[in-house]
């Protein structure tokens, strides 16, 4: 790997925004129903449990980066050699591309259901990807800027949930621990899908100044995400009765239906439009990760690979037309992400450690 020039690196505290921004995406709009399905109104405990696992995984990833030569591609190379390593890299290209497709398609679905039923998926995706291309081709510093604004600007939206308080009954979450441990663990697994995205650190790492000291910021990013999710989960549990929540696909958006302000009748419209800002860094970071791996394993110029990936994304998006497909897409990328993070990464760390020892002896 060529060393990254200092001028293209980012300050370590920006890792906080990068990690937080890619975690919070379209999933926040409707994760409540998924966790309540198994764990009922004990689901908020599962959110905390899933949050804790992300902290452990982040530690594992930093260890992997430390031992594995600075990023995912070099770790693969140490573990599997040149060609097999490239094959493993390519899997991650597919995964990050799938993430882009999932995030964008889910958001477009929300816009179609809540605002404009006749919005064309293709044209919206085209406009969005052009913007994403423009940002990503500017490099990591640009993306970090977008992640910063994508976190700070829409953060006021959290305050709007206070409108639900007069209609909320926080006793809904009582009694605590009314579900079996097994149910709570299933919910924890389902919740961990909503947390995905922080594995992008595996590629961002070489671009961070004082990279080794940045773990603190990454952990804070994870912690903030968990806190936000727990707050939203508890507020929605208080606002909806259990069977009502089971019927609500986008509980977070449905809560905005109760917001009433003198100058705006339907707050969801403002909320959803603002959510575009939350989605943007998501798409940019995932797209950048995919193109970065492409750059490392092929001779293709990174700008060109962004182009190619964008075209693939737009093409795939247009084929997904209904709720069922979008749901399937979400489950698919969630499952893949889960196994990559929770199974593959720890194994990879082990293999890297073993291979390093083996080579030393040889």
């Amino acid at each position, binding site marked *: 790997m060529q060393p990254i020039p200092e001028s293209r690196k980012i300050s370590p505290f920006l890792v906080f925004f990068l990690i937080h921004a890619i975690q919070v995406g379209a999933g926040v709009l409707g994760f409540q129903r998924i966790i309540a399905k198994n764990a009922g109104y004990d689901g908020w405990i599962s959110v905390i449990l899933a949050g804790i696992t992300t902290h452990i995984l982040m530690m594992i990833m930093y260890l992997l980066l430390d031992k594995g030569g600075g990023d995912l591609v070099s770790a693969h190379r140490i573990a599997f050699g040149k060609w097999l390593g490239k094959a493993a890299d390519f899997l991650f290209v597919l995964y990050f591309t799938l993430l882009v497709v999932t995030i964008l398609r889910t958001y477009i679905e929300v816009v179609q259901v809540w605002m404009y039923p*006749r919005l064309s998926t293709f044209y919206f995706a085209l406009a969005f990807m052009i913007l994403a291309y423009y940002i990503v081709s500017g490099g990591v510093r640009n993306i970090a800027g977008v992640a910063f604004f994508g976190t700070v600007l829409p953060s006021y939206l959290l305050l709007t949930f206070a409108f639900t308080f007069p209609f909320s009954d926080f006793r809904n979450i009582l009694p605590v621990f009314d579900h079996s441990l097994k149910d709570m663990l299933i919910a924890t697994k389902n919740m961990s899908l909503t947390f995905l995205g922080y594995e992008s650190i595996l590629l961002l790492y070489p671009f961070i100044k004082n990279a080794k000291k940045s773990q603190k910021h990454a952990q804070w990013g994870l912690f903030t995400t968990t806190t936000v999710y727990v707050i939203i989960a508890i507020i929605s549990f208080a606002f909806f*009765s259990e069977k*009502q929540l089971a019927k609500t696909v986008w509980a977070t958006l449905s809560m905005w239906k109760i917001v*009433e302000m003198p100058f705006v009748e339907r707050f969801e419209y403002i909320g959803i439009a603002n959510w575009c800002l939350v989605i943007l860094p998501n798409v940019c970071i995932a797209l950048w990760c995919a193109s970065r791996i492409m750059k490392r394993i092929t001779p293709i110029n990174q700008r060109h690979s962004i182009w190619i990936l964008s075209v693939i994304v737009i093409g795939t998006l247009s084929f997904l037309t209904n709720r069922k497909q979008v749901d399937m897409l979400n489950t698919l990328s969630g499952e893949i992400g889960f196994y990559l993070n929770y199974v593959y990464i720890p194994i990879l760390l082990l293999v890297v450690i073993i291979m390093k020892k083996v080579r030393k002896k040889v």
Partner: protein
Amino acid sequence: MRKRISNLILILLLLTGCVEREILDDLNIETAKGYDLVEENTIRGTALFPVYIKDGAIENRTLSAEAPSTREVLETLSRKSQQPLVRGSLDVVLLGDDMAKKGVLDVADSLQRDASIGARVTLAIAEGSAEDILKGNYGIRGNGTFISNLINHNIKRRELPETNLHMFLFDYFQDGKTPYLPIIKKVSDDTLEVSGVALFDKDKMVDTVPADDLFFFKLLVDKLSEGSHVVKLGKKDGDAEEHVEAAVTSIMSKHKIKVENETDPVKVSFKIVIRGIIKEYTGKRLSQKKIKEIEDKMSKDITDHSLKLLGRFQEKGIDPVGIGQLQKHGVRGFDIKEWEKTLYPNAQFEIKPDVEILESGTVE
């Protein structure tokens, strides 16, 4: 680089107008809607929309259509409408009482499903026909606004318990609670009146609370409530017919419900705290002794009426107070079937009123 940016701008210009435009003047914006049952399987839907006339006045227009289901009513209505009917600023949905007895979940579901409809929509039951009410002419701001204001100020300041679409659905889906909605009645062509509260079993109306009992009903179901109650004391001196009356307005009141779930039968105690002021008094002199008497009488009224109401709920198998819901929060592994079948019908109630009159106005 400059060329690239100008290309980008060009493309963005081409992208405008992706989505259809909707111009306010070319739409019929529904502000209220009514559903009535005309025959066994025919629903009559009425849509009310305001038409704004040049000098600033508002004309109420209605369209009605009949169809077997609520969804078909919508379609038939659109066929009759000159301009597209949109539901984005719907304020009120009225349901005729026949319709309410048959079940209202279909209507509530279609309202909830539509992303353009807010959760604060006022649902109410029309005594008689909803169409009849919507066809009147009330106030100068249009019927939709009139009805929603009528109900909302009664919720905020008077004896009507708080309800809206969201709360109705919350109660409907919550185990151990049944929903309730206000009833309005047409008095004359330009007057409406809140005449009580309809009680539901699941989504079917099974009972009503008359306007006189609303003060007590609200004390039971709402966390905080206001409202007023007329206390009848002993006979006036030297008058065989007339009672001495005192109108007490509650300025602050709250309730605390405690369910003792270990006992058999289940004991439920209501602590009701009221801080009130006397607005009217028909007797001679309002002494401290008299005030004490009023407080005691009011406490007795609250106990009597509340117990009567609660007994009626048990009899009908409904639970607008949400005692089952409280029980659910208190015990692990709550079994709703057992609760509804054996525990709730045998539950014993105890009312502990705490009434205090703070002021009695500017004269003694």
